[in-house]
């Protein structure tokens, strides 16, 4: 067994290892977007536009870092672009009779389209400077595959550090308390003299900044380049993940890792030679191949949404303002 490991082949164990590695490598966008959306939803508003924000952040981060030669400048630019899109969402929603869900969908399409338009010159430029040295979590192992799989990016570490910080801040700071009171009962917060729209503007902006940073991770740390159709649905899945995480930052981390890891199932199964699952039903034979495996993250989203919703019970942990009818 030892010699087997030394050769760098782990056999079937490489599937879970690849999933863990993948989770550590690609979960950062889920994590950033879901933390951002948690902040926004805690203020009593839903920003579905974060898919657009994520893609705009990805494009802006890549464009700025390839022009300036600085990865940090790209990351900052992505954050600023995300914040601006958040402000736009909050500004539109503050108008009378405007529905945040509808604005979010519009901004999602707007963001993806605008990124595609503005990003055209950047589709095939030279490589951008590396963002930061990766941090190795596999130092304890002599196995190359293990070490290669456990490289994590600094931005992921920062994202993980944000989790306890946000959780603590929501509970133990004035801003946290005000944010939650606005999201739980706007009338009460208004009676205490807080500006509902002001608080929501800041919360949506902060959510946008985080989503923009998640976007920068996509192009600067993961893909190493900008292209159209990057990360379709990642932002939307991250928004769904907030519900799954019950609006708790720590749960966002677990859920982001789960969703990130699920994306590795298809390639990992292929890498161990499992290209197809045949199921014989007697009268017909099902052949499940790559396309079915690639559906797994989306099936996971769907399954989670069904599993966690109920026709009669109200969801635990949901900010009360989100449960009020806001369609008229």
């Amino acid at each position, binding site marked *: 067994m030892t010699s087997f490991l030394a050769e760098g082949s782990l056999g079937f164990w490489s599937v879970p290892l690849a999933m863990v590695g993948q989770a550590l490598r690609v979960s950062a966008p889920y994590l950033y977007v879901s933390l951002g959306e948690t902040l926004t939803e805690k203020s009593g508003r839903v920003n579905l536009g974060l898919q657009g924000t994520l893609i705009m952040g990805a494009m802006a981060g890549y464009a700025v870092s390839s022009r300036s030669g600085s990865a940090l400048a790209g990351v900052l630019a992505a954050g600023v672009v995300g914040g601006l899109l958040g402000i736009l969402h909050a500004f539109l929603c503050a108008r009378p009779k405007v529905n945040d869900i509808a604005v979010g969908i519009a901004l999602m399409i707007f963001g993806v389209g605008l990124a595609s338009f503005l990003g055209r010159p950047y589709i095939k430029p030279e490589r951008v400077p590396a963002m930061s040295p990766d941090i190795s979590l596999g130092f304890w192992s002599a196995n190359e595959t293990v070490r290669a799989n456990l490289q994590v990016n600094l931005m992921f570490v920062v994202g993980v550090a944000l989790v306890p910080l946000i959780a603590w801040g929501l509970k133990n*700071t*004035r801003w946290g308390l*005000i944010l939650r009171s606005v999201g739980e009962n706007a009338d009460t917060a208004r009676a205490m003299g807080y500006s509902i729209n002001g608080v929501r503007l800041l919360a949506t902006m902060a959510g946008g900044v985080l989503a923009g940073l998640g976007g920068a991770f996509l192009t600067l740390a993961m893909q190493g380049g900008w292209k159209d159709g990057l990360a379709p649905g990642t932002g939307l899945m991250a928004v769904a993940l907030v519900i799954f995480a019950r609006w708790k930052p720590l749960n966002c981390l677990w859920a982001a890792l789960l969703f990130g890891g699920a994306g590795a199932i298809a390639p990992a199964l292929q890498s161990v030679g499992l290209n197809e699952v045949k199921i014989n039903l007697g009268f017909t034979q099902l052949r499940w191949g790559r396309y079915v495996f690639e559906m797994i993250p989306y099936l996971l989203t769907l399954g989670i949404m069904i599993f966690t919703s109920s026709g009669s019970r109200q969801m635990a942990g949901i900010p009360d303002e989100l449960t009020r009818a806001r369609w008229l």
Partner: protein
Amino acid sequence: MSDAIAAANPAPGLETISIRKTFGSLVALDGISMKVRPGTLHALLGGNGAGKSTLVKCIMGYYRPDSGDIILGNKQIKTYKPRDAQALGIGMVYQHFTLVPNMTVAENLVLSRGNVPMRIDWKKEKADLRAFMRTTPFFIPIDSPVRMLAAGQKQKLEICKQLYLRNRVLFLDEPTSVLTPQEADEVLTMIKALTLKKELTVLMITHKFREVMKFADEVTVLRNGKFAGTGLVKDLTPTQMSAMMIGSETTRTAARGAKPRGELLLHLDGLHALDDIGLKALEDLHLNVHAGEIVGIAGVSGNGQNKLVEVLAGQRPASAGRINVHGERFGATRAEIRRHKVNCLPEEPLKNTCVGQMSVAENMALRNFDARPHSRLGFFLNAGAIKRSARDLIARYRVKTPSTDTPIRDLSGGNVQRAVLARELSDGVEVLIAANPCFGLDFAATAEIRAQIIEARNRGAAVLLISEDLDEVFELADRIVVMFHGKFVYETPAAEADIGIIGRHMAGHGEADVKHEVVKT
């Protein structure tokens, strides 16, 4: 600022001098002067629309009075917004809770303070809160999320919050309306104790005589925005207070055909129902309504009337008992409604029985769009026929609308009411249930709606009129039943009705008279 007030125990008194407030042409308060002496529990009584809430909101800074002065202690004060009142140590407890349910008691209290520190030291805050809680008569677990508290606990927390904010003058707006009588007594006993210690001056808006008699020191009564009387509670009887509340100017105007009452149409047999939180809302209701008769249910709002309407309309299940129409069990299914011609005119019809964005014609057809001639083969709608019927109804019931296609929510309140009344009366209604049918309407619309109800009666319909407006009940009803705490407590033919006796029953002080009545007949 509130520190200064706290140091200057005891609680100050409060006085209003000739407060006047108008909304457009409506005079909501017509020169109200009242005096709440320091360290007392003062009750503010009055019917719906008497101006109680408006007066308190003027003092709290929600409204700015047109004229008049407010004196706190011995200083004249100006309140332009609720924060000004708070800074002066005046606080208010609302009918509905203003707590954040998903936060803990401690978080709610700290949040209410306004000057929350940037970083909250929960250990210290909780120690402070526990120490504070010991200085009050309340015991509320501070780590519990508010949503886990019972209604009585929540109301205590609201009052606790006012003490925590060091308010010395409290307005309570029907503080017991969501509480059980036991919880209400407990909360009011604690408040009373605080006033006796001169820590609080309390003005309590209420329409419950029981609470006034048991807890208040003094009472001021408003009627239609005017001062109607004041006095020490120990010098007054509920009868005198209800006389102040109701006044004596009742007139009967609508013309009615004198007709012997017909067959029994609507029969309630031991009807029981529960409210949303599972408490008894209706208890053992027995009632007969005959053809060609209007039975008026009088009562102060919140004594189960809206629950009764919901049960009759099929919106709330009866927990026991039955409703019979034409001697058959009635469960308010669409088939039964159509067979027995039981129609309903609930209060706020735009909200309760219309689809706001659908057209006037469509709304008028809600009862019969699926029957001929409005529907072909029971599936395809005949828009032409629906519009023709609507045009006919609009003309007959004088509904003012730009067209049959106008969304009904664009109509004025009176015209929505007429449109719904047209729908409910047009198909030969046999049992009509009308709840506060003229609420919020102007004089002309009111007269017309009432005339239509009388006409339906004259045509032989059995009408059950549920109204908080005693004048309306007196004007329309052939028989009057008083509802109190979900029970029918008194019944009398309208011709022999005495407004004083009815008022006392409405206030739950009628037992003696019931016996008296029985002896007399």
